[in-house]
């Protein structure tokens, strides 16, 4: 195979990034999946779609989000110069809304009357419920009972926004099973319903589409870093569950070979314990949820349960473009344990007055390790993909604090 001139032109016409991706979907859904791909292609060719999306991203989401120089964190770590891309400041508190704005406009163009979505941490569920309120479209959010418990504030937010939250009680009761249930709903209500997938995974065209909608993150970072430093960053760091915030930051830099790119998976209680969500570091290629990707699976090809303190990273697979970037070596993928993420959560909170989501805390935790090893003129941009208010119960529990009693 000849080396392509660009790493940014995937997927191919079969929806593949190398061997990853594809359309592993039941026949009932396949015609609709083609409809979505066609509608997206048409939308891209329509300046009105771009105009409308830009309007809502600016006026409703509040973009661009700042690229903030984390001076005290930089000082404390004593190495690289650290910037935070503040996706936590978006309306609804995470990067997820960049994608839901894009897809709800697409669903509207397709004349869909109902939205369904899966959610892990609840950030995508909230971002979906939000745009559904805005555009007055009924929505149903599938969420595992394990996640409902640990992300209660987000469940209440979704309900306040008018969404129906359907608890999923099968399997591991987390994101994987929420996706299964959402797919079962979609196949049942195929005519009326749009499946608003929240991460850069699933059947083609979703990984490509979600990536495109999230690329606003990396596009802004390019311009903001030029303005602040007169050049591109040296290092990019982002956490990875399905991988949407990371691909949004990384993709616009893939063809800049001098930019080092690092994705951070959840190592849970440690990869050696088997209780983790590190699909790239400890999984193997498999097919689930419409695409081929690295997957945590046993010797019989049964999908294993992932484990992470962070509901948003608690998924046994990973988006197909990341799998490909891993295999070709363009992006480094590392893993951070629960305890390391918790320490980073507290560190950023105390040093910068910014409470990060537990997901984003994994990226911060890697920067805590990495920055001291880098020269002071190395510019690191870490994606602060969401804010941590939703995680306070989980963090309090992990730290042994009973919020009602001994605060």
């Amino acid at each position, binding site marked *: 195979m000849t080396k392509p001139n660009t790493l940014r032109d995937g997927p191919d016409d*079969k929806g593949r990034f190398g061997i990853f991706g*594809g*359309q*592993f*979907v*039941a*026949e*009932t*859904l*396949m*015609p*609709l999946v083609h409809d979505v791909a066609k509608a997206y292609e048409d939308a891209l060719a329509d300046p009105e779609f771009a105009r409308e999306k830009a309007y809502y991203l600016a006026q409703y989401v509040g973009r661009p989000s700042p690229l903030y120089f984390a001076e005290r964190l930089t000082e404390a770590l004593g190495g690289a110069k650290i910037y935070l891309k503040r996706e936590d400041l978006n309306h609804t508190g995470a990067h997820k809304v960049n994608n839901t704005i894009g897809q709800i406009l697409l669903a509207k163009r397709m004349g869909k009357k109902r939205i369904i979505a899966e959610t892990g941490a609840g950030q995508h569920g909230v971002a979906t419920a939000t745009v559904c309120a805005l555009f007055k479209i009924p929505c149903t959010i599938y969420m595992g009972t394990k996640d409902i418990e640990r992300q209660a504030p987000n469940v209440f937010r979704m309900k306040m926004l008018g969404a129906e939250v359907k608890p999923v009680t*099968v*399997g591991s009761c987390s994101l*994987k*099973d929420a996706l*299964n249930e959402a*797919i*079962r709903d979609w*196949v*049942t*209500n*195929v*005519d009326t319903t749009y499946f608003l997938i929240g991460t850069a995974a699933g059947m083609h065209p979703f990984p490509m589409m979600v990536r495109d909608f999230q690329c606003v993150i990396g596009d802004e970072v390019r311009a903001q870093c030029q303005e602040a430093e007169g050049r591109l960053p040296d290092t990019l760091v982002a956490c990875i569950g399905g991988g949407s915030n990371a691909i949004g930051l990384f993709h616009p830099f893939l063809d800049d070979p001098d930019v080092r790119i690092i994705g951070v998976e959840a190592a849970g209680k440690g990869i050696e314990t088997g209780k983790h969500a590190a699909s790239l570091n400890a999984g*193997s*290629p*498999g*097919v*689930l*949820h*419409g695409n*081929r990707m690295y*997957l945590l*699976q046993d*010797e*019989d*090809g*049964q*999908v294993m349960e992932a484990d992470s303190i962070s509901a948003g990273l608690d998924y046994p697979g990973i988006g197909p473009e990341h799998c490909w970037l891993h295999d070709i070596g363009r992006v480094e993928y590392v893993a951070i344990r629960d305890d390391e993420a918790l320490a980073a959560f507290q560190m950023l909170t105390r040093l910068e007055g910014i409470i990060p989501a537990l997901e984003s805390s994994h990226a911060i935790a890697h920067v805590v390790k990495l920055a001291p090893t880098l020269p002071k003129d190395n510019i690191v941009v870490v994606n602060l993909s969401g804010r941590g208010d939703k995680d306070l119960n989980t963090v309090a529990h992990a730290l042994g604090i009973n919020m009602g009693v001994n605060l």
Partner: protein
Amino acid sequence: MSAADFETRIDRRFAQLKAEGRSALVTYVMSGDPDLETGQQILNGLPGAGADIIELGMAFSDPMADGPSIQAAAIRALDAGVTLKKTLAQVKAFRATDDETPIVLMGYYNPIYHYGVEAFVRDAKAAGVDGLIVVDLPPEEKDELAVPALNGGINFIYLTAPTTDDKRLPKVLEFASGFVYYVSITGVTGTAAAAVSDIEAAVARIRRHTDLPVAVGFGITTPDAAAAVAGVSDAAVVGSALVNRIRDNLDADGKAKAGLVDEVLGFVKQLADGIRAHKGS
């Protein structure tokens, strides 16, 4: 109009039924449900109870196209220790008792992909498998398994759905052989049922595109319904209703009660009697 240049037990069975002037009863059970031994007894008893074609489920942890009944069956089978290898061993053991009834394995792609496609096709053929239904392999992904299966002498059975329009049908049928499986509802297994008139129209539409037999499944739960569907198609597939008979004959610990196999096979006989009474479609 078959993509296969070979003949399997499926072709012979449909030819034989055509001569008899009746449609087929296709029964679905999950391999290893509720345990490997009981599952083998059910499997071995199906032809005698009147099953013309056997669909044997390959358990998967994430059965996205299945409703609660078959999801639960998969969990029971996996808990009982079933693997794809053991499923093939069950087929092999069955073949020692019956070399005529076609067996079609049905499930999802990942366990096969993980097993290795080439090795799987070879081992499945050697065990006595005639066809494959893999829910998450539409024609768009035919190179993954459909083409290797055809090259290895196994029919790859394609699903068509109410959403598969006339424009798309030729694409779905291009590599079809054995029979065509019409999923009669938009939805998961074992939930809603389609009206017989709708099924009749859909089968007629598919027949305009192929000479292959058309089997109809999803939502057929009673002998009457099976007979009615068989009356307007070449085969009626009953799955969840059978699997529910297994569920209903488990004790509080989830172990098979003494009469489980007879209960399940007795129900198969009722289904078969219904279809045979309806001779002459």
